[in-house]
């Protein structure tokens, strides 16, 4: 007689296996690792395991956007400024050669030491950052460059100047700009996928997520403070809203999980970059040859189909 817990797990596994989106998760040579992910789900992630992915996603030594740029792109040229008000160091953008072709890339950048973290605001962008991203999106569209975004932010910057400069509208318009692109777009959550600040760069044809990244509507601390009225209940909050990659895949929010080196991406930057590069290349390859208006149509249909009620 199987236990109730076992029945629950079997049910979850069969639901997961039947997910249409898993068909898109063909990461060459990484299927075994994906299978390991699935096994981790079937064994039921405990509160502590979910909290561990929160800690790994925020690990001080985790590779950031520029660490991947250095390892994956040749001839990278950084593009700065929003052509209006300033240059936001919390978000970097530029052009580079990825496996022989020019791509446009934007990503949040947290900063490695105290000084740089202050300057880059922990990857929490102001509207200037999102406007810089929009400018580079439009550039990519004009010149037919694939657009790649790397998401790693606790959230959009919550400050007086950010509000005065139109934070909400900038995030809305960055998403609208992505919905209009007629070039292939791939987003990968490489650390913290925090709320509006993350989705502003993630309305893409393919959405990937590293094994130990998190993607959520609010931070565990923020959620606990509001719903439990106690920021100390952050572990409970995290396990209630399930920000880990396996759950995001299960919910159909992402297309594939990108494996990390054993112990997490911070253990081996080169290997983490190699795995990310493989996944990006594969996603771009899948999108090659699809006409721009068809990419745009499918991208909008995909996001519009989330949460459809019959």
């Amino acid at each position: 007689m199987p236990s109730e817990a076992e029945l629950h797990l079997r049910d979850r596994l069969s639901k997961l296996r039947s997910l249409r989106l898993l068909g898109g998760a063909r990461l060459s040579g990484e299927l075994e690792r994906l299978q390991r992910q699935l096994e981790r789900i079937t064994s039921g992630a405990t509160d502590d395991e979910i909290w561990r992915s929160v800690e790994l996603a925020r690990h001080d030594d985790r590779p950031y956007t520029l660490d991947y740029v250095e390892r994956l792109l040749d001839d990278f040229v950084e593009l700065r400024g929003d052509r209006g008000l300033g240059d936001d160091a919390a978000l970097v953008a530029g052009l580079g050669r990825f496996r022989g072709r020019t791509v446009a890339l934007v990503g949040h950048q947290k900063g490695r030491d105290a000084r740089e973290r202050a300057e880059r605001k922990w990857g929490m962008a102001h509207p200037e950052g999102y406007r810089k991203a929009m400018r580079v999106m439009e550039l990519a569209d004009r010149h037919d460059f694939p657009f790649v975004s790397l998401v790693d932010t606790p959230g959009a910057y919550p400050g007086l100047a950010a509000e005065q400069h139109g934070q909400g509208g900038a995030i809305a318009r960055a998403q609208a700009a992505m919905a209009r692109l007629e070039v292939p777009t791939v987003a990968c959550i490489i650390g913290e996928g925090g709320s509006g600040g993350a989705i502003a760069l993630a309305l893409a044809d393919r959405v990937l997520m590293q094994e130990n990244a998190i993607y959520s509507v609010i931070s565990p601390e923020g959620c606990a403070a509001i719903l439990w009225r106690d920021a100390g209940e952050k572990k409970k909050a995290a396990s209630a809203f399930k920000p880990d990659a396996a759950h995001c895949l299960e919910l159909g929010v992402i297309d594939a999980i990108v494996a990390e080196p054993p112990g997490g991406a911070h253990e081996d930057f080169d290997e983490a970059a190699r795995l990310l590069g493989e996944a990006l290349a594969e996603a771009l390859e899948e999108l090659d040859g699809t006409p721009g208006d068809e990419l745009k149509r499918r991208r909008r249909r995909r996001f519009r189909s989330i949460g459809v009620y019959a």
Partner: protein
Amino acid sequence: MSERIDVSIEHRHAPPPSNGREPNTCPKCDSHYRDDELERHLRVCPHCGHHFPVKARARIMQLVDPDSFVEEASELRSDDPLEFFDLRPYTERLAEAELNTGLGEAMVIGQAAIEEQSCQLAVMDFSFMGGSMGRVVGEKFCRACDSAAERDEPLVSITASGGARMQEGILSLMQLPKTVCAVVDLHDAGVPLISVMAHPTTAGVLASFASLGDVIVAEPGALIVFAGPRVVQETTREKLPADFGLAESNLGLGHVDAIVPRTELRSYIGRLLRLFDHAE
């Protein structure tokens, strides 16, 4: 930055603290009104002009031509995809909200006519779980866009929301791109979106469809911010101006086209609908 309190979404499931006041006592000038007096003045204080909150159905009655409103998708109800349980189960909060408000969700959509101009309406209700946007609100907004495009009639949205609905986790965040894609499709179809921001229009709703109106108007005194004053103060310790995030400061900063008192909203929208009417 050890205590990283995020930021974006501030929910208030309960009505704002009344400070022991009667709900019909004006928080600005202390005038007290009977229900019918306040309703007759569109829930605007006749003494000082303070705008009291308006529920979705009352708002629709204030705006549309008599008997012209036909509700759509009223049968949609949220389920509980994450089996979310904080201090209470999400399903219990939903049931309670429906009992208290008589609404199935935090948004009401349908067809209507305003000053004899046909349009589509999407109206939010803050009293249903802080007007938070989960999958049903996202879906209803998208259906309103589709109806508007199909009939080639403008969409008028009226927002009052604390942001995304946390109890639906990442799926609530996905309502931002979902509603944005619906607006972009609407724009491509050449159909106008008129966005009216009532108090409060914040976080996930401001960072998605509400900010994408062809014309954006705000009600006097409405709080229109991505991050609320409490979150900003806790995170940055900045001293905030007294008018932080209010409609009036948003007008000065160029984020909205106009501030329209509720008593003039119907004629203002009517004028816009006539300007956008290219059939003539």
